[in-house]
């Protein structure tokens, strides 16, 4: 049974990778061989660095059977805070500002985790409230004003086009997560809770503590993404990345992460994020106007989840048939 499950989860990533490579080649042919250029691939990662980074935390949250829709609110609040710090001339130290943003995110995530684990509040409602609060706080502290490119000059060099800063953060985060999910006891506990919470509790896992840790990690990544966002887009606005939390969830789901918990891998999440990013990048290149993007995006999400269910049903039926013989 175990080897079968492993094959099943392995299969999704393999098929996703094959579809992605096919899609990449077709798009490349359609736009005359300009798609596989180095700058283009670099752009794909840079433009979607925030989604990719946050999808890692979302993977953890979804694995425990929860959800976090407050992430872009946290992102806006932490990003706006460091934007204002630069605007008011407090500091321009890149390392310090990243640390502050991540710390803010960590605290926000910790609050979410405490409310969800200790207060027995359903994750979607708690994070819905948190989304309102942090987004509202971003507006209030900023007084509806921006931190412009001038205000954040110097700091924004870190994520400027051509600098390797964002790629390093992404790379380190992904390697860390692959190691953590595969070989650390924490990673295995997260899977255990997602597959069967009661069994995990009885076998001695402190479910509350793991849950709090998961939401705290999610918050820290959202804070980090806030700092990265200010750096990449060279400005901080209170309304930044509105609605992007759905993109993050979609990237995870395309990558084969189950919304009911317990199933999903870091590699799948990465592939899902890149799949999403390629589609996003390719649409204008193959001649579709940008106003078509959302429509196509939605259809892809629906198609992926429906295909997932259909193949799972077919597999179940096959298994049953095999057993009968």
């Amino acid at each position, binding site marked *: 049974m175990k080897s079968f499950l492993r094959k099943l989860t392995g299969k999704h990533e393999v098929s996703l990778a094959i579809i992605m490579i096919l899609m990449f080649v077709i798009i490349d042919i359609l736009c005359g061989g300009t798609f596989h250029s180095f700058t283009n691939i670099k752009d794909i990662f840079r433009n979607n660095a925030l989604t990719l980074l946050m999808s890692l935390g979302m993977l953890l949250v979804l694995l425990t059977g929860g959800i976090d829709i407050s992430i872009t609110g946290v992102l806006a609040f932490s990003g706006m805070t460091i934007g204002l710090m630069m605007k008011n001339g407090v500091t321009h130290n890149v390392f310090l500002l990243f640390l502050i943003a991540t710390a803010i995110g960590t605290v926000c995530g910790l609050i979410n985790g405490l409310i969800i684990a200790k207060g027995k509040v359903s994750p979607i409602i708690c994070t*819905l409230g*948190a*989304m309102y609060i942090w987004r*509202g706080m971003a507006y209030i502290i900023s007084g509806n004003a921006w931190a412009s490119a001038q205000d954040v000059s110097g700091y924004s060099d870190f994520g400027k086009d051509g600098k390797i800063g964002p790629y390093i953060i992404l790379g380190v985060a992904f390697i860390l997560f692959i190691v953590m999910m595969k070989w650390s006891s924490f990673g295995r506990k997260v899977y255990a809770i997602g597959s069967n919470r009661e069994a995990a509790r009885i076998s001695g896992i402190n479910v509350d503590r793991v849950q709090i840790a998961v939401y705290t990690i999610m918050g820290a990544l959202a804070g980090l993404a806030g700092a990265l966002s200010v750096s990449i887009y060279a400005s901080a606005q209170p309304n930044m990345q509105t609605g992007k939390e759905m993109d993050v969830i979609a990237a995870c789901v395309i990558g084969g992460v189950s919304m009911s918990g317990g199933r999903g891998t870091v590699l799948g999440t990465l592939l899902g994020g890149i799949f999403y990013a390629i589609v996003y990048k390719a649409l204008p290149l193959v001649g579709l106007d940008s106003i*078509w993007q959302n429509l196509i995006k*939605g259809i892809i999400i629906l198609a992926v989840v*429906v295909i997932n269910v259909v193949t799972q049903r077919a597999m179940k039926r096959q298994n049953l048939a095999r057993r009968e013989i």
Partner: protein
Amino acid sequence: MAGKSGRTISATPDRSVLKRILSWEGALVVIFIGVLIMGRVLSPSYTLNNVLREMPKYLSEILIALPMGFILIMGEIDISVGSIVCLSTATATFAGNAGLPFPVVILVCLLTGLACGALNGFILTRWPELPPMIVTLGTQIIFRGIAEVALGSGGSASYANNADLEILGKKIGPFPIAFFVVLIAAAIFIVVLSKTTFGRKLYAIGSNRTAAAYAGIKVNKIRFIVYSLAGLMSALCALFILTTTFGANTTTGQNYEMDVIAMCVFGGIATTGGKGNLFGALIAGFSIVCLRIALGQININTQLILVIIGLLLIISVLISGITQSDWFRKKQLAAKQKKAEAAK
């Protein structure tokens, strides 16, 4: 008689005044009155007439809160309603600008919403193992995507014949038409939920879907109806949005799903299903609307409302969460034992 959770169920419900005020709905009424008093104290222009004049802008969201209550009671969620509002305003605007008579425009608007809701219902009942959250996330993006494509690069279209819309925006006495529509719709939804078999079936599905199916309830049929209803009511909301915006925009109805879910949850409906009633949601909806108007009157940062709604939401669920936690139950049990010992 003892229920399955150990609570005693008595044949005659306790209807003392204190119990009623201490119930969630009672607390909501107190909060509602508190909001009105606060508004009056903060701003001298917070009069009945002014409140009623500002109301249509926010009031129509309550129309969506009613079917959302049904969906939440079933233990599910629909986050595509805001996009359905957007798409319905777009089709209504196009229909109106094409010169169709106003009743036909209304019909087009409502049918758009109904079709969107039915699509949600179809996908969710055709593949019941799909989580509603992710399906309606997909359709949320699709519906708004269709509106974006239809509205073109400008992203907005204005309704040419304003006179038509002004009929819907009219007032009967000091009350706007939307106010009566909300009250009538709420009455129908409340009666359906509490007095009909359909309503009881919703609770049954929310408490235990498998058990409900074995008990002979056609779960998928009911889910299909409820999701279609959510689409229809979103379109009705879109009609009243049109009377204040006089046109369609790609950002119309953004975040409505969150506002509406907040109203329901603040009104005491549990998102895990099977618990809550629409009366609470209605009062909660009116409280939020009146709070919005009050904050708008005193000219403070309008985004403060986001923080307040967020806090209200978390606190209201936290209270019910804590009263259900092991820690609280143990405390209560200990207090009861102490009392019993003292009585001895």
